[in-house]
């Protein structure tokens, strides 16, 4: 039984990492209509930026901030230089998916000769062990949970209580109407790429720290969990992504405790399939998700 309690504790850490990443991904989809398959590669690039700083003797917590800034700047430029021009040309969202896959392929393979194919680790103590009953966590893991909670609260505050957040929600619901109501949708989109890029970069460093050891190939692996969490909660829905992250994080750890751990992703994804059968739009649906194709 104590194993399940411990697994619950580990699930809290996993869900925190997934939530930071999935909220950024799903906001890109919800507001700018981009299924950005390069998201995982931006994450891993940010993780490497933090790695090189850490190697130069800088604390990983500062590296985390720099990683987030890098993710923001990179995502902003990626949109300005590649995605936005394509969208202005009238490329369909599907064409954009293909563009983003091409970017993802190019990023992974441009990074490979630079960072190498081997796994690396941040040089940072894990901190002491903290025991809460059967739950055993390190101070680093508790910090990761704390970061996730703060980030989620900030996103909540942004969306609910700021003009920018309201503009984002309006743009997400109906970009044409939003523009006609005087919302500068172009600037809103820029802000979205900066904010979600920062989440992406932060998530990259947090995920790398959480894994203790990471390599270039992890970029593609991150993306899979993120996709699952985003779709489970309802694609495009920040709160949905949070719920999706909680469920995926908990289910993978609890099923690793209950059955052979090689099936932990199978179980989590099985739950996802079940949700897709019962509620194809995800747990929280964006308004209009069930509308006719188009």
């Amino acid at each position, binding site marked *: 039984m104590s194993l399940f309690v411990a697994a619950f504790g580990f699930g809290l850490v*996993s869900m925190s*990492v997934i939530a930071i990443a999935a909220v950024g991904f799903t906001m890109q989809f919800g507001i700018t209509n981009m299924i950005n398959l390069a998201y995982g590669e931006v994450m891993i690039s940010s993780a490497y930026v933090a790695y090189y700083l850490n190697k130069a003797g800088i604390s990983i917590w500062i590296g985390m901030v720099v990683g987030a800034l890098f993710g923001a700047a990179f995502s902003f430029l990626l949109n300005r230089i590649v995605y936005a021009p394509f969208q202005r040309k009238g490329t369909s969202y599907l064409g954009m998916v293909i563009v983003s896959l091409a970017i993802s392929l190019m990023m992974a393979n441009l990074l490979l000769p630079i960072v190498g194919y081997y796994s690396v680790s941040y040089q940072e103590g*894990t901190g002491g062990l903290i025991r809460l009953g059967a739950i*055993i966590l390190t101070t680093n893991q508790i910090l990761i949970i704390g970061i996730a909670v703060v980030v989620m609260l900030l996103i909540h505050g942004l969306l609910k209580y700021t003009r920018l957040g309201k503009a984002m929600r309006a743009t997400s619901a109906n970009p044409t109407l939003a523009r006609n109501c005087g919302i500068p949708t172009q600037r809103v989109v820029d802000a979205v790429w900066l904010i979600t890029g920062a989440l992406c970069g932060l998530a990259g460093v947090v995920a790398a720290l959480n894994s203790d050891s990471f390599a270039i*190939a992890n970029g593609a*692996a991150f993306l899979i*969990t993120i996709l699952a969490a985003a779709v489970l909660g309802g694609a495009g829905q920040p709160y949905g992504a949070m719920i999706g992250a909680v469920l995926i994080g908990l289910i993978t750890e609890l099923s690793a405790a209950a059955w*052979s751990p*090689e099936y932990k992703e199978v179980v989590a994804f099985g739950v996802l399939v079940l949700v897709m059968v019962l509620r194809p739009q995800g747990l929280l649906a964006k308004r209009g998700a069930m509308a006719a194709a188009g």
Partner: protein
Amino acid sequence: MRGFERYKVVSAVGALVLFVACGGGSSSSGSGLGSGALLVGVIAPFTGVDAALGPAYYAACLAAAPSINNNGGVGGRQVSCQQFDTRGEPADAVPAANQMIASNSNLMAVVGCTSDEAATVAPIINLHHIPMFCMTGQTEFNKTTLPYFHRLVPADIFDAYAMVGSALYGPGHAPYKRAALVFGNDIGSQAFVAPATNAFTKLGGTIVINQPITLGASSYRTEVAAMLATKPDVILTEALGSAGTYLKEVKTQNGGQMIPFIGTSATIDPTWFQQVRDAIGVADLTKYYGGVDLGYSFSGPAYTEFQTNLNAAASTFADAPKYKQRGSTLHLYDGIIMTALAMVATNSADPTVYNPKIKDIANGTSGATVVNTYKDGVAAIKAGKSIRFVGAGGENNFDKYNNSQSGYIWVTYDNQGNEVKVGQMTPQQTQDISAAGGI
């Protein structure tokens, strides 16, 4: 019916071989060693998740080429190396192999062909009569009928026995009684589980947990908690790529204290060393790690030449010298040199002629002169002697399925990542474990 189906598969391969033997070889047969450059194809993953494998094999070729070229080449023909990326994907590997063969009529040998692509690539290379040296431990090649296939590394089960031996009889510790098996759920790794379980259990140990893990997962916390709850004395493991993440978690949850872990011969690898060192620290790695490897001496004239050339290759491939103790790099180096010697010995650039000679040169026929370098080999051949090549990786003993077997030693790492021998099994122990394991 089963027998019939089997016949169909085997006969298809056999007939293909016969056909190319008649058609394909005619261009170069009987005309001595010919002229022009020769090529060694390195067909392996250079991109994708297994991108770490290709460079280790390419390094072997970079070292072997000057050994041959600086000593007259193969009858004056210079050897060069070329990489062919399978992208770690069996369907992409098929055109990679076909393109390699179509674009290069001067292939003398092919090296690489890992478990990612051996199943699709080996039959194609065999069809075109090019000797290949494959780095796969897959069971399906234990009794392969492909005559151009060579394997200089033992099948995975022998690794498993050596690990069990290390746990039971290894130096510096009382016999471990409680072992946890932590293997990736890829096929290469899972092949260790059954023989290790059989051998360890029959010899009085207990497998407290057999934990197949998903490779590449972002964390293994629950897995480690479950594993530690069974209180093992030792972990037997191969979880390539995820070793750093898993082992660091062991250390963290066990209150900063590692437990001993024994790795397969695939853990003798510079990238594995670096990954685990960075994750758990060099002190714990050297103290708690035990590995198994083929009995390399890392000395002698063959090894010296190998290392000199590998260091010189740093001008084109900066990481090449790191592979100085990687078994597959050593073996592929030997494979390329043996192929060149077989060509000289048969005075032929026709693989149908020189391919069978590779086995003779590796195993040695009675009265053969032992040589350690290409230069000495050529001299001995010129003097009319038959030779046995004992190279950088030591002796080779091909069985009738072109699988080479040799004995294991127990090893660990020093602080710089150099392999250090700590002991080896006695013949009696080897026999006991093999009997208990069921082979």
